[in-house]
């Protein structure tokens, strides 16, 4: 039964033949090892308690793992959005990347879940707690529940795509897209609805999250597609090149929107020095996180990839890859800064307290770094495996 199911969805022929088993095995072994190290660090942290292994504290309870989780689910939602442009909304140019995007949206969200499982100190209580203690006012409840549904829809969509049941796939793709967008804007609302956190509070977060998801999706699909072809020695056909060009242009548009958003976020954070928000914004603009912000977010994440894509009009694959690599790194900085800087202004700020920090500090610990590396390795492992099993995710019957 199980075997039958697998033979149904695994293409036995056609598509692209993966690179030699030697190279593949080495890469898989390395990624597998890194995943295990990450899982080991995570399990150890759960065992002895975050108090002893993580850099998080009472004042900054969310650390790099939350940032990595946000990074993964933003990417996943983005890949879902990008995939749906082609086969939900019927823009033909986007079709060649659709299957890979759907697969990767699953891979990235699974990696995200892996990371969050170690950030939530009692994640095993979640399945039961989420049902018997369901709290409809909690954005994190909605996010978790919707992302669960999202993963389910995306899995079905992927299976339907493999079975060439396109109508059903499109229906589940649409369901996945809708739940993904709802889940993701709820993740934004997890931050945006906290009245006590001035830097996050407001409608900006959910809106920004969706827009930057679309941007992340474009960047990620270029990044992964290029590596898949390079790693396996495949040659891109014209349809794929055309698709990459279209994705790059959509990505460039999204980057421009993100630049616009970021400008106004900066201006509203500074003008009139709004209490709480201003201190956090200054930390980004001129303080301890200014390198992250200007170097990581602005240059790597926005300006550089945008200029590269515009310079080659999305047509040079090597340049597109460089742009997407910079984008991926920049986007990680965006998530990290967003999560950490929002917590740095302490609760009783602006009250003239003595011996009270003006800003809190957070440094990720070794354990946290290892878990994040493990998550990235696991995502990469799924990606490499997927390329081999699904023969380059080619879309033939369109």
């Amino acid at each position: 039964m199980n075997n039958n199911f697998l033979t149904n969805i695994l293409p036995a022929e056609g598509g692209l033949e993966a690179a030699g088993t030697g190279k593949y095995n080495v890469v898989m072994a390395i990624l597998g090892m890194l995943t295990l190290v990450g899982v080991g660090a995570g399990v150890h942290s759960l065992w002895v308690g975050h108090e002893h292994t993580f850099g998080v504290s009472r004042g900054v309870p969310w650390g790099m793992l939350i940032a990595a989780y946000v990074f993964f689910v933003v990417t996943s939602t983005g890949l879902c959005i990008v995939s749906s442009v082609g086969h939900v909304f019927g823009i033909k140019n986007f079709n060649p990347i659709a299957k890979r995007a759907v697969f990767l949206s699953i891979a990235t969200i699974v990696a995200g879940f892996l990371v969050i499982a170690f950030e939530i100190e009692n994640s095993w209580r979640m399945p039961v707690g989420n049902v018997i203690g369901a709290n409809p006012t909690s954005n994190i409840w909605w996010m978790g529940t919707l992302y669960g549904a999202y993963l389910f829809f995306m899995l079905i969509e992927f299976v339907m795509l493999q079975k060439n049941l396109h109508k059903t796939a499109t229906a589940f793709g649409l369901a996945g897209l809708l739940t993904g967008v709802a889940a993701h804007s709820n993740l934004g609302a997890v931050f945006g609805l906290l009245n006590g956190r001035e830097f996050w509070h407001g409608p900006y977060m959910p809106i920004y999250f969706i827009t930057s998801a679309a941007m992340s999706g474009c960047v990620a699909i270029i990044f992964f597609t290029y590596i898949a072809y390079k790693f396996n020695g495949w040659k891109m056909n014209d349809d794929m090149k055309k698709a990459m060009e279209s994705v790059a242009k959509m990505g460039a548009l999204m980057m421009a929107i993100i630049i616009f958003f970021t400008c106004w976020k900066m201006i509203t954070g500074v003008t009139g020095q709004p209490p709480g928000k201003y201190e956090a914004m200054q930390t980004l603009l001129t303080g301890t996180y200014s390198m992250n912000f200007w170097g990581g977010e602005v240059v790597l994440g926005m300006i550089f990839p945008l200029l590269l894509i515009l310079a080659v009009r999305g047509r040079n694959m090597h340049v597109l890859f460089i742009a997407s690599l910079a984008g991926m790194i920049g986007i990680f900085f965006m998530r990290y800064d967003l999560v950490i800087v929002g917590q740095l202004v302490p609760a009783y700020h602006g009250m003239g307290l003595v011996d009270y920090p003006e800003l809190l500090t957070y440094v990720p610990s070794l354990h946290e770094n290892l878990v994040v590396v493990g998550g990235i390795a696991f995502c990469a492992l799924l990606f490499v495996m997927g390329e081999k099993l699904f023969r380059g995710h080619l879309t033939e019957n369109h």
Partner: protein
Amino acid sequence: MKIDDLEQMDSEDLRGLTSNERRKFLKMGLAVTGLYLGGTVLSLTSVKNAGAAGVVPEDGQYPYSPHYSMVIRERLCIDCERCKNACVKTNHVPAYGFRTTILEKRRSLGGGKHETIFMPVLCNHCNRPPCVRVCPTTATYKDEKTGIVVMNPPRCIGCKTCMTACPYNARYFKEETRAVDKCDFCFNSRLSKGESTTACVEACPADVRVFGDLADNKSRVYQLVHAPETMVWVLRPETGAVPNVFYINS
């Protein structure tokens, strides 16, 4: 009927209504529509969240009974920290955490001189607690009877969202119970065992902390909060949490 007779009759238009009657009618309408549209969210005459005009609730508008609250007579605090120690002992607070602590303010007296003001802080047991709203598994909730914000440790998944949501830094993750821990006005350690007050209140030598039922007009907290010529404030009112720890200056 002749036109003259008509003029003789009592008018039935709104002018005939006393303003009290009018108000009553209006109030009923608002209450009805408010209830219809989601009660406390939109009703202008909502009982539960009334008092938005100031930090001290209107008389009789306390959602809980007993409506436990604490009044901090701030300028009397001398930071002897007996409250902290009593809390640690009573509630088994580990060395890396606290349920209550004392902060220190400085105020210029001019001429280069300053005065120190110690500010005890603890969970504010808000009427609209952000921590309770964000908890995905209702592991933290407002006790329906007393309004105390309590924890159900076995339900806590450790996502720490309540810690980021709390405007008062009143929560920490307690590794020993694998759950977020916080002040519960000594509900588990004392009140539920028949004691009438919290450990910190009992330990305070300067009568800074006063604990009691705000809904009882004979209680000290009621009398302090409603005393004339008294400055009453709460911490971070702008977050809309409607806290139940009041600070006064006398």
